[in-house]
């Protein structure tokens, strides 16, 4: 699995992970995300974790249904990836880091 070389290194990637409390699924998702980012986006990503139990209003604002949901806020367009991020290939496709089949 290779990161697309065309992407300029300076492009910042802003990611937001929506969770609902410290559930095993959320923990897994966060761990998976961390790994993928370190491996493919080292140095140019930023992860923000939103706990909907603490901030329920945000569920409506960001159109969140599924937990966990990873949202790529930047670069545009916004991308949504749901699930515990255990399928690395699909995560990369979802983040536009791999071409869609």
């Amino acid at each position, binding site marked *: 699995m290779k990161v697309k070389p065309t992407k300029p290194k300076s492009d910042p990637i802003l990611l937001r992970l929506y969770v609902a409390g410290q559930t095993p699924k959320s923990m897994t998702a966060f761990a998976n995300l961390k790994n993928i980012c370190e491996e493919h986006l080292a140095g140019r990503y930023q992860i923000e974790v939103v706990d909907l139990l603490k901030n329920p209003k945000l569920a409506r604002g960001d159109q969140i249904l599924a937990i966990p949901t990873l949202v790529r806020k930047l670069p545009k367009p916004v991308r949504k990836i749901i699930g515990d991020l255990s399928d690395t290939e*699909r995560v990369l496709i979802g983040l536009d880091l791999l071409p869609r089949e």
Partner: protein
Amino acid sequence: MGKARRQLPKAPTGIQGLDEITGGGLPKGRPTLICGSAGCGKTLLAMEFLVRGATEFNEPGVFMAFEETAKDLTQNVASLGFDLKNLIARKKLVLDFVYIERSEIEETGEYDLEGLFIRLGHAIDSIGAKRVVLDTIESLFSGLPNPLILRAELRRLFRWLKTKGVTAIITGERGEGTLTRQGLEEYVSDCVIVLDHRANEQVSSRRLRVVKYRGSTHGTNEYPFLIDENGISVLPVTSLGLQQIASTGRIPSGIPRLDAMLGGAGYYRGSSVLISGTAGTGKSSLAVHFAQAACLRGERTLYFAFEESPSQIMRNMRSIGIDLQPWVRKSLLQFQANRPTFAGLEMHLTMMHKAINAFKPQVVIVDPLNSFVIGGNETEVKAMLMRLVDFLKMNQITGLFTNLTSGGSALEQTDIAISSLIDTWLLLRDIEIGGERNRGLYILKSRGMAHSNQIREFLLTDHGVELRDVYIGPSGVLTGSARLAQEAQEQAAQTIHEQEVEQRKLELERKRRVIEMQISAMRAEFEAQEAETLNILGQEQAREEHLTQERVDMALSRKADLKPNHHRRGSK
């Protein structure tokens, strides 16, 4: 039913008629599934449930829309008089549009719908909602991958809604062979309502049916419903029992001789009267007479015309001397004229209900019934009429229906087979004799009264309908000019008879006079003879006396004794 027993707590919908069918509303604190095909009114029904809840029952609600945006929804229901913006501002309603776009979502492993739960929970808590609508939650299946997870999550969602204690409506699109595409009925099993929108002979009608209602009795029929500017109204018109009060009051038919035929007093108040007959037999004229009689009593009449316009009816009735215009002006008579094809049966029924409820008439006329029969919908027409008759009876309204029987079929057969619903049935028929066609009327049945079994000739004159006796001849009844000829014949015979009697009387009188004249002549003759005889006798006596005197005188002169002569004369 069973009011003594503890009823399941219910949340009234506030929707006209639906609360009657469901015996008070939807199961309180439980989810209800409303399913139907596209455009059948699911969203509107759900929205009205929330709006009525918020405005009439002080139960705020959350509307979670998966298909329409909040803006679209607000606009769409504004036509029903629902001001969502105002309700939202007053914290009586939360509109939450859930946006799901499959192409923007990548699934990367296990997930759950906790986000939806939190979102809904937050909305409920923010206004203390008691009612929730999820419209249409099946969109999740097209928006999110992995149906297995979704099913498990939906099951959890409905359980969670119950624990929240909210009365929920979940809408679902009708699937093939199942109530909903995704089989939601498996999860929501407390109450299931199916909406239907179908077109028959180019006329569409909406129907509602309560398929299931756990722990409660409910009407099981398909009920027509209507969406108009006041929202939804469902017609639970078939009363579950036959418990109408039968009035013993009578109201005249407007034709004195017909009243006489109907046991002398006319129809029963609140009964249903059918006038059937072939074309041009005067059904409408009879109906209008009844209407006029009602107006004369100061009662209101609602006239549903399905074949003629009001002005046409009024013009035609003027020709038989009935002017309806004053009654219309006094608001005692109201016409409702519509083409039968203008709307579906249910729509007609609903409109009739509305008109009746608004005008509150004592008499309702439907002219004619059979115009509803288009193609093969007799059973539906019958069902509709049953509902109408029931409704009228419940409200003690006398209903008069006309029905056109087609030439070929038996007169006693109505196209719509509603005779069993009818209390008084008048039959108008043509009687063809001697090259002309005349009208005859008889009473086929009239429940609960001694009625005439005779046929009457029915005349339309310039001063209204008249009933005449008919002549029974060797070839059946005589009407029209045959009747007139018969009348003339009898008249002639009568005259001859009378003349004969008169003649005899005159003859007798003449004879009497002749005899009396003879008698008086004889008497006169006798009297003449008598006078003559007496005269002669007088003369004789005088002469005798004269002779006697002479003799006395002579004797005196001869100095004779008088006495013996005198004695001789006395002994004679």
